[in-house]
């Protein structure tokens, strides 16, 4: 005799349904994976002093999204960007990243955060396993440190160590040619400023061993007045100055140093000068400041790069920034990776991204590569040149040598215990 089953669902079915429900609730990007559109989440900085960079990141992403959607979308699915303001706060960036995936149903993340926020978003990506491309953090350790490595995260950004090697080599050449042995530094007093300056000095001394640092100044981030740092540097009488100041801080510094005629008394190397955010704002841009390229439409000097810069300007009535090209490149990578596997499945796309080389207007040789072993961008246009007060602002940029950059980067990784 069989026991008649009770109407409704039994305990086992209830548990199974609850389990499935809990899984669905916890991993909505899986449940919604086959929706007609694909949502991509993007935490970035849309308010505060860095808002211009976050806005330019959003603009660049949207330019590429329009192109991808016009061409049929990602594996036939139209992209819908969900972009939120983190206000530059790491905890807010992490919260938003989690919410974008768990509540909004985003299947991928473009992390448009500065370094501090990127590390927070990286931990969210590690936790929930969503595909994530960092597009703004230049802190080398984000991908160089193997402890940070996760299979679903990539960094599509220039790296501090690459800039330092290229900059150190360029500056050493000028130092030898002009006999610049006494150097001073003036960089913002936080992780980026200190790390970048230390790396630059390391490689400057590597290529020009008789260089000596005779003065260091570390103004606070967003400090309004630099008078005391300007006069301190003038007292030290260096032959050259290196600075990692950026954005409004750099333009303030230039305005304040200009009236002390500082730029006639020493060679100045400002890694972040050649970005339109600074170039177009400084009214009396001194001739002859040495700078690393950030984004300028004339380097690389290709029709593709110029066309991209012009299209951006035509659409948004201002030039793109360093963050713009990085975000645009991330979308280009995503598009190519999806094409390669004909799927928007995060795991498959991550596999396709690993080691992928794509054609790109911002590549040193017209291509860029997502390096397989540490999921970071290489091969992008990198170089240094000197400023003039009008367009094209940095007419002759000397390209960095990627062979040399990669060789020295490998040594640097070893010295840090990363390999």
């Amino acid at each position: 005799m069989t026991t008649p089953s009770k109407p409704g669902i039994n305990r086992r079915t209830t548990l199974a349904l609850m389990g499935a429900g809990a899984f669905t609730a916890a991993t909505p990007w899986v449940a919604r994976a086959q929706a007609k559109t694909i949502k991509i989440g993007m935490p970035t900085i849309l308010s505060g002093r860095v808002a211009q960079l976050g806005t330019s990141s959003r603009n660049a992403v949207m330019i590429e999204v329009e192109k991808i959607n016009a061409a049929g979308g990602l594996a036939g699915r139209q992209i819908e960007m969900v972009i939120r303001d983190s206000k530059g706060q790491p905890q807010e960036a992490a919260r938003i990243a989690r919410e974008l995936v768990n509540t909004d149903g985003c299947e991928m993340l473009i992390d448009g955060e500065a370094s501090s926020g990127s590390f927070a978003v990286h931990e969210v990506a590690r936790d929930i396993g969503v595909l994530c491309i960092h597009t703004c953090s230049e802190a080398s350790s984000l991908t160089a440190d193997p402890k940070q490595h996760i299979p679903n995260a990539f960094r599509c950004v220039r790296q501090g160590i690459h800039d330092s090697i290229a900059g150190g080599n360029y500056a050493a050449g000028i130092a030898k040619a002009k006999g610049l042995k006494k150097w001073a530094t003036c960089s913002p007093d936080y992780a980026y400023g200190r790390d970048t300056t230390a790396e630059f000095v390391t490689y400057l001394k590597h290529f020009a061993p008789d260089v000596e640092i005779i003065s260091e100044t570390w103004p606070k981030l967003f400090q309004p007045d630099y008078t005391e740092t300007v006069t301190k540097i003038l007292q030290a009488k260096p032959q050259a100055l290196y600075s990692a100041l950026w954005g409004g801080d750099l333009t303030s510094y230039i305005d304040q140093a200009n009236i002390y005629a500082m730029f006639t008394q020493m060679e100045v190397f400002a890694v972040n000068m050649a970005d339109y955010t600074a170039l177009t704002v400084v009214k009396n841009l001194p001739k002859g400041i040495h700078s690393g390229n950030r984004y300028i439409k004339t380097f690389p000097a290709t029709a593709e790069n110029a066309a991209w810069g012009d299209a951006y300007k035509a659409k948004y009535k201002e030039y793109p920034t360093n963050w713009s090209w990085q975000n645009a490149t991330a979308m280009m990578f995503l598009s190519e990776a999806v094409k390669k596997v004909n799927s928007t499945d995060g795991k498959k796309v991550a596999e396709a991204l690993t080691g992928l080389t794509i054609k790109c207007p911002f590549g040193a040789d017209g291509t860029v590569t997502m390096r397989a072993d540490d999921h970071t961008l290489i091969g992008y246009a990198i170089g240094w040149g000197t400023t003039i007060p009008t367009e094209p602002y940095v007419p002759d940029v000397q390209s960095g040598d990627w062979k040399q950059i990669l060789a020295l980067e490998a040594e640097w990784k070893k010295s840090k215990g990363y390999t």
Partner: protein
Amino acid sequence: MDLDALIGCFASSACVVTQTTSGLIIGMLLFLVAVGLTLIFGVLKIVNFSHGAFYMFGAYFALTGYQLTGSFTLAMLCGAVGTAVIGLIFERVFISRVYGRDVLMQLLVCYAFVLIFDDTVKLIWGPEFKSMGMPDAFRVPPWFIAGGIVPPFYVLLIAVALAVAALLGIGLARSRLGKVIRAAAQNPDMVSSLGINTAVIYGSVFALGCGLAGLAGALAAPVRSMTPGMGFSVLIESFIVTVIGGMGSILGALIGALLIGLIRSFGSLGFPLFTDGLMYLFMVIILVARPTGLFGKDVA
């Protein structure tokens, strides 16, 4: 710590001139902001936490004035007068409602307007930073005095700040309006009973204080980049100045600002990693030795 650099500086006239001028520049801009703050507190008994926002408005008004007219004199006027008008409206519509209320309420109102003013600037001028650039008249090589470097623009800045200090000092001490203001600060009820409209006095003082912050912003505009929220750091240093000088004292604001300027200027040579710390340490020492500040009066 680099005491050799500091001692070496005192042995060189060039260094002393450059660093002293640098201290005066830092101090004089701070003075213009702090004197408005201290004036408002002295008369209205309001700690205006939104004062930094008026410095910001001054810079942006000056930028627009300069772009429209090409004259830095008119730009300064735009900065000072425009900010004074906003200050007057702010005082009449909002601040006048929290006179005599506890400091927390005043703080909340002021802080709310810091956010509102920052967003207003963002809406009108945009979120990105702006730069005015040095006016043509001051795009000249710096002067060399006893080997020290002195930029002509900074001489103007110091002169304007000193003129403001003198006018304020003489105006408050000698003019009829000054006497009424001082009387209103001491006993507003008595002033009111004499048939003097204290609301006008309060509005004028608040507008004057804000106008001075606006003038500071306008003077700083050619050398400092402008961003929404730029008034915050200036506000903190202005509070330090008013605490050192004594809340409500104009002379105290002047001396406090000059001391802070010189500490920053010479401190950056001898204590490059502790320049901000020196400023706070000095404030603590003053507070311990003289809790009302150098020129403050005991409330009791």
